[in-house]
């Protein structure tokens, strides 16, 4: 059943993402994106996954949005005119619409068999302890791998983005060339 809160949250999420993809100014896009992410986090909370909703807010709104904004600040080249869409924008929209229609078709077909389920499964209350226990019991290997991956990504991103000028090892090579 489509409760009002679900509709509002879904609307915020989709509207935020849609405006994020359509605005001219890149920074406005990122701000609209954060609205979309907040709507999505609301959806997670509505679906009962409290821990995931809060992590989503913390990781995406707190970190990825700021990262994107910093990237925009560093690559903002005031000179060039800011056209929004690349030349072949129409085909892009057509492909996206096609993908959406096929997905929607598949979803509606899958559910045409089962009637609107009246039995409303009670929201399973997930506590942080349960997540912690399963994380460290069944999923301990992925947890360690994720830790490793995040450290690698952290150091990798810094090395990639480091400016060759301040990197001491770089300057000798250029000097010798």
């Amino acid at each position, binding site marked *: 059943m*489509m409760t009002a809160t*679900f509709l509002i949250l*879904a609307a915020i*999420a*989709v509207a935020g*993402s*849609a405006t*994020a*993809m359509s605005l001219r100014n890149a920074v406005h*896009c990122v701000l609209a*994106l954060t609205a979309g*992410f907040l709507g999505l986090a609301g*959806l*997670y909370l509505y679906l*009962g*996954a409290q*821990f995931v909703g809060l*992590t*989503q807010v913390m990781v*995406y709104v707190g970190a*990825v949005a700021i990262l*994107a904004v*910093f*990237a*925009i600040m560093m*690559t903002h080249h005031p000179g*060039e005119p800011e056209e*929004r*869409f*690349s030349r072949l924008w129409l*085909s*892009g*929209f057509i492909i*996206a*619409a096609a*993908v*959406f229609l096929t*997905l*929607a078709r598949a*979803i*509606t077909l*899958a*559910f045409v068999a089962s009637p609107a*389920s009246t039995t409303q*499964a009670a929201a*399973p209350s*997930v506590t942080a302890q*349960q*997540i912690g226990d*399963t994380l460290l019991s069944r*999923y301990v290997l*992925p947890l360690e791998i*994720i830790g490793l*991956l*995040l450290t690698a*990504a952290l150091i*990798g*991103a810094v090395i*990639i*983005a480091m400016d060759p000028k301040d990197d001491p090892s770089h300057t000798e090579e250029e000097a010798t060339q």
Partner: protein
Amino acid sequence: MNPLEACLLVSALLFAVGLAGALTRRNAILVLIGIELMLNAANLNFIAFWRYGPHPEALTGVLFTIFSIAVAAAEAAVGLALILVAYRHFRTTNLDRMNHLKG
């Protein structure tokens, strides 16, 4: 309208919006944002299936989403670093102009 079906439709819509953005936008950073959106749409699917799936106590959906958020954050960081280096080389983030492969 089954609530699971509603969630799936919303995530499909989000996925389509992200895909449209990724395909049509000219600025490299906004393409990356489009990909982030597609990732988020997938996360929404996981949570929907966990919530309305057969046995939610297994917490697979929730944990998969947590790992997926972590990977997406790492991917965003490295992606933006790559964009910065590309900007430093090409002096523009306009994807249409990054078409020559000279080193």
